[in-house]
Each structure stands twice: as structure tokens, then as C-alpha cells.
């Protein structure tokens, strides 16, 4: 028999280093108000993290906040199911959601993107709490297919969730993986597709045509669930249906890049946001807890903002 494989490969994900570990996974919740509040806190965490350097992948966090909130708090069985983050640039949302799920200490967010950190701005093999990560776009779905195939071959009750962005549909490998997954009936595989319509050079539609997105996936043999990607109830219902399917499923989640940050505006490069004077304060006001809109700190240090963003 083979020699013992590294334990890190056996589990659903890499554990967080002890100094970054959170309280442990919180009980799942289907309370839609709580999930919406979680998404709001994810945005607030992300504002704090981007504030550390004054620039970063804020638009990705705000477009995917509801998807991560529902997945991490209501659906993903931490320690059993597997999660692949295909666009590593979304690590910012992963870290914020992991804090909200009790998997990562909130103080860890203050280290986002700083030199030598565990919380790298584009995730890597060191990134805690993901089964695989793929900063090079278009690779994640194949890895998810491999994980789902492994579970199917072993007859294990593990689901594989892959998060990808719509821009990755430009990579041919995405369709290689889509074809294989449907052919092999990998029902345990669920793709969350963040259709924010944005890529580095601008709106996707100005670069190439990826529509009709849902029809493409349907024609490849997938169960397709079109949802408003900022509606936690719709996302939850779609994920519940997707996980019950005998076929691979995709949530085609229509989203907006800087959703929830009305004061910061949408006329800048949402793919990589650079904060101007006053932007941090405005963004924190935008993402203040709904019930009691807290005044923005007058001159918050970046690290303090990151560490205390959700408080």
C-alpha cells in the first residue's frame, strides 16, 4: 500500500494556521435577514482590507458578497464539502466570508496583502480553507471536476463547489471541464458563476461575446439556475436545488461590480479599485450595519479599519 499522503491533501481544505484560526464553523443558518447582513459585513471587511494598500480587488468582493455569504453560512458543510476558488483575485471575499463563518480570526484580515502574509491578495497553495486555488484563470473547474470525480468514485457524501467568474468563460479549458462533468454525470458538482460582466479591459461585451451564458451551459448538459446574485433568498433556493441535482449544476448569478457601494461610484475601474480621498470613509458608511448606520471613523488607520471593519 502507498506511503501515507500528507494530511493536508486528505481533508476538504487546508486548515488556517493556528494564529489565524477562528472560533470554528458556526451553525448553518437559513435566516435570510442574517445572510443579507452577512453579505453587508463581507463588503465592510473588504473595504477595510482594500484600505490597507489603498487599492485592490474591491469590485470582486462587492459583486460576490451575497454568493459567498449564502455558500459559507448556509450551504457549505465545512470539513466535508470541498471548495475551489478559481479566480484567485476573489480571495478577498473568501477571507471575509471565512471570518463570518467562524473559520478565520477577524484580526487576520489586517494582514491582507501585506508582505509575507498568509492572506495573499491572489490566493495560492498557502491560502487557508480552500481545497484548491487557481490564480491563473480558467483552471478551477477542472480541479473541481477531479475532486467531484474522486468523491463519486469513492461513494463519499461530499459536494464540490467551484466559484468562477464569467470572464473565465473566455478560457477554453472551462468548456473542456464542462463537457467532461456532464458526460460523467457529476451531480455533486456545483459551479457558482459570478456574472458581473467585467474584465480588466472593461465590460466583457466590449471585448467578446459570452452570451447567452445560461444557454451555453444548458447546451453542455448542465442544470442551470439563473439568479439575481444579490438576492440571498434566490441564491439559497438555487443552491438547494443545485445540490439535489443528479447533473452538474451552475448558478448563473447576475451581479454588479460595486454593488452596495453607491457612494464610491461606478465610473472607475471596478476591477481594481484605487481609493481616492474620502473614499474609505464613504465606503464604510455605505456598508455600515443597516439598523444603526454608524458614522465613519474620521481618520481610521488602514489596519484598524481592517481589523475592526465589522464591529
Amino acid at each position: 500500500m502507498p506511503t501515507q499522503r500528507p494530511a493536508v491533501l486528505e481533508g476538504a481544505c487546508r486548515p488556517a494556521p493556528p494564529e489565524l484560526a477562528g472560533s470554528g464553523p458556526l451553525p448553518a443558518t437559513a435566516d435570510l435577514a442574517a445572510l443579507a447582513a452577512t453579505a453587508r459585513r463581507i463588503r465592510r471587511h473588504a473595504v477595510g482590507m482594500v484600505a490597507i494598500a489603498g487599492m485592490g480587488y474591491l469590485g470582486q468582493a462587492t459583486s460576490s458578497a451575497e454568493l459567498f455569504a449564502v455558500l459559507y453560512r448556509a450551504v457549505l458543510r465545512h470539513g466535508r464539502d470541498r471548495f475551489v476558488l478559481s479566480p484567485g483575485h476573489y480571495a478577498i471575499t473568501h477571507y471575509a466570508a471565512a471570518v463570518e463563518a467562524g473559520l478565520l480570526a477577524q484580526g487576520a484580515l489586517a494582514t491582507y496583502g501585506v508582505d509575507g502574509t498568509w492572506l495573499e491578495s491572489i490566493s495560492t497553495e498557502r491560502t487557508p480553507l480552500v481545497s484548491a486555488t487557481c490564480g491563473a484563470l480558467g483552471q478551477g473547474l477542472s480541479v473541481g471536476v477531479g475532486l467531484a470525480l474522486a468523491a463519486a468514485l469513492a461513494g463519499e457524501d461530499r459536494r464540490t463547489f467551484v466559484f468562477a467568474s464569467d470572464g473565465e468563460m473566455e478560457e477554453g479549458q472551462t468548456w473542456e471541464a464542462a463537457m467532461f462533468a456532464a458526460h460523467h454525470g457529476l451531480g455533486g458538482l456545483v459551479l457558482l458563476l459570478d456574472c458581473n460582466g467585467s474584465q480588466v479591459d472593461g465590460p466583457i461585451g466590449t471585448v467578446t461575446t459570452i452570451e447567452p451564458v445560461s444557454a451555453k451551459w444548458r447546451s453542455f448538459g448542465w442544470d442551470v439556475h439563473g439568479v439575481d446574485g444579490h438576492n440571498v433568498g434566490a441564491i439559497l433556493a438555487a443552491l438547494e436545488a443545485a445540490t439535489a441535482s443528479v447533473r452538474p449544476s451552475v448558478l448563473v448569478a447576475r451581479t454588479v461590480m460595486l454593488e452596495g457601494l453607491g457612494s464610491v461610484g461606478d465610473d472607475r475601474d471596478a476591477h481594481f479599485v484605487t481609493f481616492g480621498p474620502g473614499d474609505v470613509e464613504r465606503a464604510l458608511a455605505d456598508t455600515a450595519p443597516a439598523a444603526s448606520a454608524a458614522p465613519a471613523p474620521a481618520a481610521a488607520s488602514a489596519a484598524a479599519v481592517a481589523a475592526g471593519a465589522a464591529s
Partner: protein
Amino acid sequence: MSGVDLLPFPWTTTTKPYGSALLELARARPDVLALGADLTRQTETDLIRDELPQQFVNVGMAEQNLMGIASGLARTGRCVFVHTFGVFATRRPFEQVAMQVAYPGLDVKIVGFMPGLSSPGGPSHQAVDDVALMRALPNMTVMDVADATEVRQAVALIAEREGPCSLRLKRGEVPVLFGSEHRLAVPDAQWILEPGNVAVIASGMLVATAVRAAHVCDEAGLPVSVLNVPTLKPIDREAVLEAARRSSAIVTAENHSVVGGLGSAVAEVLAEAGAATPLRRVGVQDTYAQASSAPWLFREHGLDVNAVAQAAWTAAGQPGQAPTAADVAVEPGRYAPV
């Protein structure tokens, strides 16, 4: 130390040494999975497909997806062998191999058939840069074995060796150069002919060529030793430096570009150690070939017995014309290098 058991020329051939060894391994280890990208019979994986279908997956002509799926499977603790022609296992999915296999250091064994100019299919099918590509990746073990005996041993050996590995294999009839006493080990190089004034350091299909070239030179009065290097990364530095110490010149011989392969690896070792031993590199000379028969290509690109003998002869500063090999009539089931 590894044992050496070089059989006398002319050598016999066998078929499917890899496929049968993989099947034997998979029978004993249910965690072993074989993945293919079409080309099942050509990569000898029809044997495992037919007997252990639950341990075989045909991914189809999608090599990038192939590497990603292999990565996902390996992340759950499985030992995954992936198969296609060498050129498609390395060039097309290079980024996937780098990011999903080599970087995480997973148990994925990349088995590429039809190395170098052994493919008659022209530049699109000739893996002349696969060793260079794989050697550049941290964590990757790179092997190019010489015969069927080594092929069989390599399968069990790389399965036991933790982490990714790239293995080049001759397709079709495979020569049997070594007997049952021969022992392969990573990363050991082996002196299979010695002593000699000139050392030929060879890998893969060019090992048989080097042995024949050594015979030709010996008969003409120039003793030539042959060092078999089945593991190109990590390379056996001590053996290379020993070759430098005991030889007036070194010739490397590989069925691959001289850029980035065995010749480069040996040059790196020699230069870093400050060895001044003259070096000649036999291999594909930084060019693309064409679609033609392997014997014609080996002669045209200087990968034949005479080219190796010529390189050894001139590297040793021998006067006059280098000796040439007599044409050997090759019967079915027999092997003589070009």
C-alpha cells in the same frame, strides 16, 4: 548502489512493458488511477482499461482539463498516472502542470510517449523540448529510461516516490538492454560501460546508441565509457563529476533538444563545479525536424551511432576519421539503434 546488468548486443525487444507494469501496480493499489486523453492503445493503457475499468478514466482530447482533473484527484490522496504523447503532455498544458501539479507537489505522474524524433509525425508530434519544460518546474522529477527493464521498474519506483514526476517512454517495440539483475534507482546514474578515455553520458533511447558507439570506438582503439542517466532531475551530480574526473572529454547524448535537456543539465553541473573537461552535446541542435521515419530523422539530426562515435572521437582529439558502425540487419523482435 544500483545494479548493472547490460545484456550483449544485439538486443531483443518487447511490447507494452509499461502497460503491463501499470496494470500490476494498479492491481495491488486501488488508489492508483490511470487517466488518458484519447490514445489509449498507443499509451498501453488499454491493459488497465480492460481489466480494471474503475481505475481508468478517458478524459478525451483535452489536455488542460486532464491535468486539472488529475490534480483534483491527487488532492484527495490518489496516485494519478496521466498518459498521452509527450508533446501533448507538456507543451499544451504547461501552465496547468505548473500550477495544478508541480506547484502543489501532488502525486501526479505524467507519462509522455514518443519522445523526441522517435515520432514520425513532424514538429507537432515530436517532443524535443519536454525535458526542458519539465526540468524547469520545481518539485518535478524528470525521467527518460533506456529499456523495457527500466520501464517496468520505473512504474513502481515513481509510484512510491512522493510528488510529481514526468516520465518519457518509447512507443511500440521497446528494447531490452538490461537483464534481471539491473536495478533502477532515483536519482542514480550508472556506469554501464567502463573504463574509457571519453565518457558518453546518455539518457533514454540514446543509451543503446551510446553503447553501440562505444563498441565502435573501442574497436578503433579509443576506449569509451557510458554513463546511463535515467533521472534528468534531480541529476546525479556526483556521477557527472566522476565522469569529469576520469575522462579527457564528455559527450552527452539525448533524444531531445540540446537546450534544456541532458546536455544542459550536465553542463550546469560541470560549470558550477569548475570542471574544465571538454563537453560535446549530441542531440537536436536547436531546430525543428520534419515528418519522416525515425531512422531517417536520427541520421539527419545526428542522433545515430555514428554521430555519437564521431563526437567522442573528436572530443578525445583522436587523429583521422572517426570509425563508423557497420549496418546491422534488424530482424523482427531485435533492436539495433540507428
